[in-house]
């Protein structure tokens, strides 16, 4: 059922949160026992998971550096989770000290944590909103105060769209965001797919059904549809480790990351 925006979300610490489980995979301690229990169970079923999450995080870092190198100084990270290690604003500000970043997440704890970390940094903002309500995100006063949407920005939807089921129309949400973007803006996207490990995907989906954000894995073709209206930059939509790898990275069995990544440019 739709919840009016003025009715507060509940903070339920008895259920695992995707953001905190992700932090655990990355070796962080921003997580609770309920998260770690789920993560350990997941790893026991699928030992590659930490490596997959690392590959995803590494893609995020490479993509931000790539775009910063192309002159993008505004970033909208939707589904940012807990921005601890390797977060967007550090990577972006390394290249452009003036880079501005807005973190958006629907998890109230992740949002509170983000606010605590970022404190008074005026180049960043944290917004509690839901990707499914794209208009709310784009019209948020903090977003408007931090980013100039009439200039190119990078919208990051990294490892988040697989938490939006078909009935919540993720393609529509991305399209509505796309339509608001100035030419030269980019979409940075990674998405879990069951194409690499169909055997492991089912049990994994089962685990995430315990969280407030169950998973919907999609095929490469389906994922490619998110880039409608964008022009994919080289090398296109590829397995996570294959997207512009650092020189010495040698990825073996990239399909075992079971995630596709790509960056599209709005002309």
């Amino acid at each position, binding site marked *: 059922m739709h919840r009016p925006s003025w009715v507060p979300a509940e903070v339920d610490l008895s259920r695992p949160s995707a953001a905190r489980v992700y932090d655990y995979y990355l*070796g962080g*301690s921003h*997580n*609770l026992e309920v998260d770690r229990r789920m993560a350990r169970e997941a790893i026991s079923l699928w030992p590659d998971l930490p490596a997959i999450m690392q590959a995803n995080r*590494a893609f995020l870092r490479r993509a931000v550096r790539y775009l910063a190198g192309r002159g993008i100084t505004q970033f909208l990270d939707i589904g940012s989770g807990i921005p601890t290690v390797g977060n967007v604003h550090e990577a972006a500000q390394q290249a452009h000290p003036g880079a501005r970043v807005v973190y958006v997440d629907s998890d109230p704890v992740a949002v509170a944590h983000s606010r*605590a970390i970022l404190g008074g940094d005026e180049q960043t903002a944290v917004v509690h909103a839901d990707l499914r309500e794209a208009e709310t995100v784009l019209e948020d006063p903090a977003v408007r105060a931090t980013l100039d949407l009439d200039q190119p920005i990078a919208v990051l939807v990294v490892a988040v769209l697989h938490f939006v089921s078909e009935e919540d129309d993720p393609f529509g949400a991305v399209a509505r965001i796309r339509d608001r973007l100035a030419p030269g803006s980019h979409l940075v996207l990674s998405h879990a797919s069951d194409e690499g490990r169909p055997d492991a995907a089912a049990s994994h989906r089962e685990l995430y059904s315990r969280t407030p954000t169950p998973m919907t894995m999609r095929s490469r073709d389906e994922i490619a549809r998110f880039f409608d209206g964008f022009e994919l930059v080289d090398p296109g939509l590829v397995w996570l480790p294959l997207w512009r790898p650092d020189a*010495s990275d040698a990825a073996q069995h990239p399909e075992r990351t079971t995630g596709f990544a790509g960056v599209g440019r709005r002309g």
Partner: protein
Amino acid sequence: MAGRRDGGDRADAAVQPDPVGALTARWAAAVAGTSYVPLPPDEVAELLRGLLHRLLAAVDEPPLRQASVGKQVGAALVDAHFTNPQSLSQTLCVLLDGRPAAGAAGGRGEPSGGGEVLPDPAPPDRRWNALVATVAEGFSAALQERALCEQEEILAAAAAAREQASEALHVSQERFRAVFEGATIGIGIGDLEGRILDVNPALMRLLGHPIEEFRRRSVQEFMHPADVEHVWRLYGELIRGERDHFRLEKQFLKSDGESVWTDLTVSLLRDGDGRPRYQLALIHDVTTLRHLRRQLEFEAQHDALTGLPNRRTFLAHLDAVFGQASPGARAGLCYLDLDGFKAVNDTLGHEVGDQLLVAVAQRLVSVVRDRGLSVARLGGDEFVVLVPGTSDSGQLVALAEEVLAAVAQPVQLGGRRVEITASVGVVERSIADIDPAELLRAADMTLYWAKADGRSQWALFEPERNAREITRYRLSSALPAALAGEDLRVHYQPLRRLADGRLHGVEALVRWEHPRMGLLGPGSFVGLAEESGMIVPLGRHVLRAACRQAFSWFGAGRSGPFVSVNLATRQLRDEHLVDDVRIALADSGLHPQQLQLEITESAVIGTDPLTGHTLDALAGMGVRLAIDDFGTGYSNLAYLRRLPLAELKLDGSFLRGLRSVDAADPVDVQLVGSIVSLAHLLGLTVTAEGVETQAQVTILRELDCDAGQGTYLGRPADPADLGRLLDPV
């Protein structure tokens, strides 16, 4: 070791072996993938190389200093996010494998050449291993610290999020409470058993119960005696989860025993899993609204003055009677209109007129009520009674008489006695033969007959008369088109001098060649034309045609035969008549003395000054004036002397007694003779109309009558028959 080997193998001293680089590479490879470090591989290698240099530099420091550096390096690994214990074990494996050749501490500017000289007498591996151990200590301490910090952070974030949510929840609850308390609409919440859990102040005020009373009662106890079954059927469906809401108007009993009409919406509230949980009622008072609506409905259906059903309601009722009638059913109308009501308004004022209408309405109601009928006011002073299920017209005639009698009773209005009568049109028909609109039209027509026949009476609808009226109506409405087209013809009948049979004149007689009804004489339509006013253009048309025709026959001479044209009374009152005559003469070229205008006695009785002037003007122009049908009207002989007349046309009825010479009625002979003498005395010529026999000609000739007109002397004919007209008989 590696350096020495390299040195021994290669002569080129410029290519120096790099033991630190090799160890760095091994170290980087060992820790790769153990933890997520947000750096590209070359930057990781750079980081490790720096740490390795610090270790090599510290290996010869005093133990305390050495331990400090080792712990810093361990902590630096954690800072770089080598947070997995595996990162530490891999690091230890690589570093304990042995320190690189001396001189690798070149980072501090020492020469990196020989590498054989150890700066300390103590066994180097022990010092190195001790240093590496402090790295492990630093790593563990930093990792523990980091984990504790992060735990603290996440718990603080969770607390902050909870606090914020609870604050928002509080605000939202406050807001809900404010809405609930402050709403002007009544709100009640109950469970599915019908227990009332909470109601807001608006609902308490609406029904007048305190909250305790609501909580004591169940929803079912708010049943109202007037509730239709439907209400509680909907309620049952809602409680069973078969519908999510319903809305209707329902009465509730207030604490003071009064009923209040409400607009009630009941919604089913479900929990997160879709199971029905509560019912929510939104109730607001629509008593006033309903009253107003009723009043508006009444006003839309009733006449404001008399309170009787209005035209719209009557028509709906009429339609309903027709719609529901069984085959063979009959129905009737009494259509009543006051006689001279306008005069009441004009003389006594509209207020009295309105009072009179109210009084009449009351009397009509008292007459029809006992019969189970109703009377409607159609507007103005028109009322109608609809009688369904009649057997014949007698019933309606009886009603009409009673109605007339009731209306005729004098009314006391403001101390004044007012008497009024009414006329009633009565129609009674089989429903199968007529539709509602036709029935009403027939009643209206019949009312008109009652008026035309002298008022203060009823008239009964007659289909034949109606058909005639309709024909008249159709002719009347077709006349303008006939006049504009070629359908009106003028025929001519000769007037012959009795002395020698020569032509005295011709009378112009209009004919209508009706496309469907054939050739119509003036009797069929001239009367209609007079009623409608068409007589004026019609008369003008005939006058012009006759003048043109006469000129073509008789030329412009001032003596000889004339053409005689009839003038209707209304034409005589038309201020343009003199001009019309002048123009007709001028256009045709006819001499005025060759034109005779026939007027009836009734047209000149009580002649008003204007008509007198008109006649004088016409006579002054030289036009002959004749009295038509002389002897049939009110024959005031005085006017014969006063008016500028030229001829009398003796009505045909005087000639009936003169049909044969032998059996002539002596009185008629004497009468006609006297009229002729009188006329001659006044200087008028006499033309006898209706001459049908030779005997009449003979007698009239003996009586010195000047001319005759009739079938014996020549029938009216088309102008093409001119030749025969000119011949003497």
